[in-house]
């Protein structure tokens, strides 16, 4: 092993959402410093929320992230409804699940095809990849579009949808629109199956590590819009207890906060969900999983891409089920008089648990808001993974290969930096 | 068949750069039958269509009796006209027309013709100058009065100098500000109306330029004893359809595209004097 010194600096990480950088220095054959540096300027969302009406929250928090606005809206409305004492009707619950399925399909397909797969097949980007695999990329874009179509069905548009409100949806789409969407989705199901099988065929690195998986869990359904917080190490708590178990801290090199579970890094996102909720997958997806010949739980992070593809399939199956029984309602939302209180909301964003807490005053104004996005939960895990995988990969490898491998590891988590860099209101003692 | 509703394709046969931003396109309809049947009068216009950009109203600038082709003289000012400026001979564009009411050239026969233009090279009136010069025997005196903001805005300067030499022709040019060695008037073109040599009892005036200038010119002409009905102006309004349907070119009760663009002054006097309509 050489004793060379390598200072690797990736100033802008490509194919991730938002702006992050990687600083890595290797001295005497060891990693001396490794930082996933998130330098997107903070956008101070929680502060802006203060003093606004609870009705404005869904439109505001959507703007934290263009890739998973649905997750922000659903976690927020849940938290606010719990303060107001609104219990969503089955129609509203079903439509939220449908809406959310759209975001999973869109975000996962975008990640698989436009961000991650080029790594495994040796391309710099999806357009180059389309040169050799046009049908694969086309299929991916089509699936992504279908996800967007589901979101638009209820939300009017797929980025910052306008259809959601605290208490439900602003309107119930027509039966005709539902029928049209259903036909599109049904035609896509075989494509989603083929996609899952294709991800299994990719040359994924073999890299098993030991870590805790955390996700929501809900009896009787694969967790999307709700659930308690469960983990592969036996955790099972209500979402209001999040702070008892998880701690956020500010790493100086980052505008995002890091979140630990009792001092340890942990994983959220598709692989964690899949590992923890296998028995809740729709039966068609379980069959597909068998056909894939893959075994979950898996602690090889690179299996995330397979988990994503399986979740696309599961979400499609769910969306089809919900649309088959779709009927418009006269009461797409419920209203309640504002009252003071604190509420929590958590849902499974495509990248993992998205946790919200709001305090309202008696007039329905936001007193304080706190949002913990999946990326800050995964950030410690990414750094730990990088250390382990780079050591295993070989620190004496050529610099560009180390860099490529490091980026592949990071991208595999689908970190969303836009999500990570909003303002988090914390009581942190400043170091003198 | 030439439909007023759908463009015909026409091919550029020649492109002439007249000044920095003014160019002439000579065009021929791609369909020979359409070209054969195409008739227009000076002062009429086409909707010139740059595919992918849109249509703009542009006057015909060629002689109506040249049947092989027709021409537009265009100033590149915005989206469509800049796009048109980039075209080369051989390129095809779309064309609908001709539309509107042209200059009263029949009425002008046997009379003095007084042409007043303001602003940068008003193509439709230049076409009339050519028309009259080519048929000199049918008209009496020709007076050309051109006003520009700055002397370097005067295009076709050589032409004006040449026209000034022609018999029974008077050329009067004014610029508000000038470079050195400007042989003509410094100031407003309206000042020069008093110097024009024509017979107010037997003359037709054609004016094209900014609306304020046209109003001022009409006043000065009346002061010279010209009958208002012998003053004709060409107006400009936004035009989307040129068929009198889209409503954008309305001025009072007129649709400039079909009732004009050439109006006799009494028809529009009140509206022009008011402004902001």
């Amino acid at each position: 092993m050489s004793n060379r010194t390598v200072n690797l600096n990736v100033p802008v990480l490509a194919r991730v959402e938002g702006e992050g950088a990687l600083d890595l220095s290797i001295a005497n054959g060891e990693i001396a410093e490794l930082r996933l540096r998130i330098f997107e300027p903070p956008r101070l969302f929680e502060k802006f929320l203060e003093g606004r009406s609870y009705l404005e929250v869904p439109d505001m928090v959507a703007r934290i992230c263009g890739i998973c606005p649905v997750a922000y809206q659903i976690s927020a409305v849940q938290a606010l409804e719990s303060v107001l004492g609104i219990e969503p009707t089955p129609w509203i619950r079903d439509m939220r699940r449908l809406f959310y399925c759209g975001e999973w399909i869109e975000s996962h397909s975008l990640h698989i095809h436009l961000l991650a797969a080029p790594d495994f097949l040796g391309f710099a980007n999806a357009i180059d990849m389309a040169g050799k695999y046009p049908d694969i990329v086309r299929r991916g874009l089509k699936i992504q579009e279908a996800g967007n179509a589901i979101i638009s069905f209820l939300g009017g548009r797929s980025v910052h949808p306008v259809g959601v409100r605290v208490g439900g949806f602003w309107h119930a789409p027509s039966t005709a629109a539902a029928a049209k969407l259903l036909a599109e989705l049904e035609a896509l199901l075989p494509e989603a199956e083929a996609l899952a099988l294709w991800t299994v065929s990719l040359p994924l690195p073999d890299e098993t590590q030991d870590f805790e998986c955390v996700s929501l869990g809900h009896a009787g359904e694969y967790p999307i819009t709700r659930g308690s917080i469960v983990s592969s190490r036996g955790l099972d708590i209500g979402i209001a207890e999040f702070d008892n178990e998880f701690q956020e801290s500010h790493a100086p090199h980052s505008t995002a906060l890091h979140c630990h579970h009792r001092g340890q890094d942990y994983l959220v996102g598709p692989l964690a969900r899949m590992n923890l909720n296998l028995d809740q997958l729709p039966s068609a997806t379980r069959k597909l999983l068998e056909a894939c010949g893959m075994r979950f739980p898996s602690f090889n992070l690179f299996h995330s891409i397979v988990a994503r593809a399986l979740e696309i399939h599961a979400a499609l199956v769910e969306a089809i089920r919900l649309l088959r029984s779709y009927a418009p309602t006269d009461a797409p939302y419920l209203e309640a008089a504002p009252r003071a209180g604190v509420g929590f909301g958590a849902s499974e964003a495509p990248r993992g648990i998205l946790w919200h807490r709001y305090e309202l005053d008696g007039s329905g104004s936001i007193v304080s808001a706190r949002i913990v996005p999946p990326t800050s939960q995964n950030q410690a895990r990414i750094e730990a993974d990088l250390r382990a995988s780079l050591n295993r990969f070989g620190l004496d490898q050529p610099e560009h290969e180390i860099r490529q491998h490091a980026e592949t590891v990071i991208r595999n988590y689908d970190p969303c930096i836009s999500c990570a860099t909003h303002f988090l209101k914390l009581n942190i003692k400043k170091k003198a | 068949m030439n439909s007023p509703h759908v463009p015909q394709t026409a091919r550029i046969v020649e492109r002439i750069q007249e000044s920095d931003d003014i160019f002439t396109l000579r065009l021929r309809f791609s369909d020979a039958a359409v070209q054969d049947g195409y008739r227009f009068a000076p002062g009429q216009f086409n909707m010139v269509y740059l595919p992918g950009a849109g249509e703009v109203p542009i006057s015909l600038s060629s002689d109506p009796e040249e049947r092989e082709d027709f021409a537009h003289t265009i100033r590149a000012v915005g989206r469509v006209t800049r796009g048109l400026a980039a075209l080369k001979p051989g390129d095809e564009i779309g064309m609908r027309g001709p539309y509107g009411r042209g200059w009263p050239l029949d009425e002008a026969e046997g009379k003095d013709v007084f042409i007043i233009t303001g602003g940068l090279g008003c193509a439709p009136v230049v076409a009339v100058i050519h028309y009259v010069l080519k048929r000199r025997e049918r008209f009496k005196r020709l007076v050309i009065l051109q006003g520009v903001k700055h002397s370097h805005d005067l295009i076709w300067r050589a032409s004006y100098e040449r026209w000034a030499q022609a018999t029974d022709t008077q050329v009067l040019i004014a610029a508000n500000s000038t470079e050195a060695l400007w042989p003509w008037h410094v100031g407003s073109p309206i000042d020069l109306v008093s110097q024009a040599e024509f017979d107010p009892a037997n003359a037709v005036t054609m004016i094209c330029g900014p609306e304020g200038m046209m109003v001022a010119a009409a006043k000065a002409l009346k002061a010279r004893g010209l009958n208002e009905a012998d003053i004709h102006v060409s107006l400009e309004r936004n035009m989307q359809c040129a068929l009198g349907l889209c409503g954008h070119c309305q001025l009072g009760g007129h649709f400039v595209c079909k009732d004009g663009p050439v109006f006799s002054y009494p028809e529009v006097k009140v509206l022009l004097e008011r402004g902001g309509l």
Partner: protein
Amino acid sequence: MKAQRPRIAVHKFASCDGCQLAFLNAGEALLTLAQRVEILHFAEAGWLDPLAKVDIAFVEGSISAPHDIERIRAVRESAKFLVTIGACATAGGLQALRNGVKEAAGWVADIYASPQYIESLPESRPVSAHVKVDLEIWGCPVTIEQVLGATASLLNGVTPVNPGEPVCVECKRRGHACIMVTQNAPCMGPVTRTGCGALCPGVGRACYGCFGPAELPNAVSMAKHFEQAGLDKREVARRFLFITSAAQPFADVGRHYKENE
């Protein structure tokens, strides 16, 4: 042949990434675009060459950190035609809600354990506050049609159109019931720029102005009307100070109501 294709770049500043999705969500059109142009920089999609000379640079995000200023100047220098996409780049975005707020200066320092590492300007400003912009596409987010439509025009050698008509006109074309008239809802449609397809009235809710001010917005009359419709001054201020709070006509009226509550 390849060298003749127009070159484009997509840059990102402070934003949610949602406007870049106009490209990434475009489906088949993304592949079409990639055939017609050469993409030189688009970090999220895998191209990294931020200083490359390009024909068209698309810019998402507002200028809100010190290093952004240098970067946007470099983008301007490298691009023949600079297009801002979205409310952040065009009007400072939602994050411009911190502009002009006295306490905002302390927010970062109060909360981050190591604020010295957080680089942030006191105000979030549009790209046009720092460099010349050739075309501003409004919207939060911009639509695929807007961005690819403008791109198609530019590839055709023509400046894109940039409609400034109010949402109302499109709302009526689509035959939606006006919720201001039928429900007394505080709809921003009359003073908001079109482009979204009148989405909010289409789902029965008031427009919240995410496409920014229309061409000739009478924000003063709109605000007075909201008051008559029962909103208090704070609520009126919040209608204008939301997604495009830094756009002048909205900022003026919004601040006026905020200060006079």
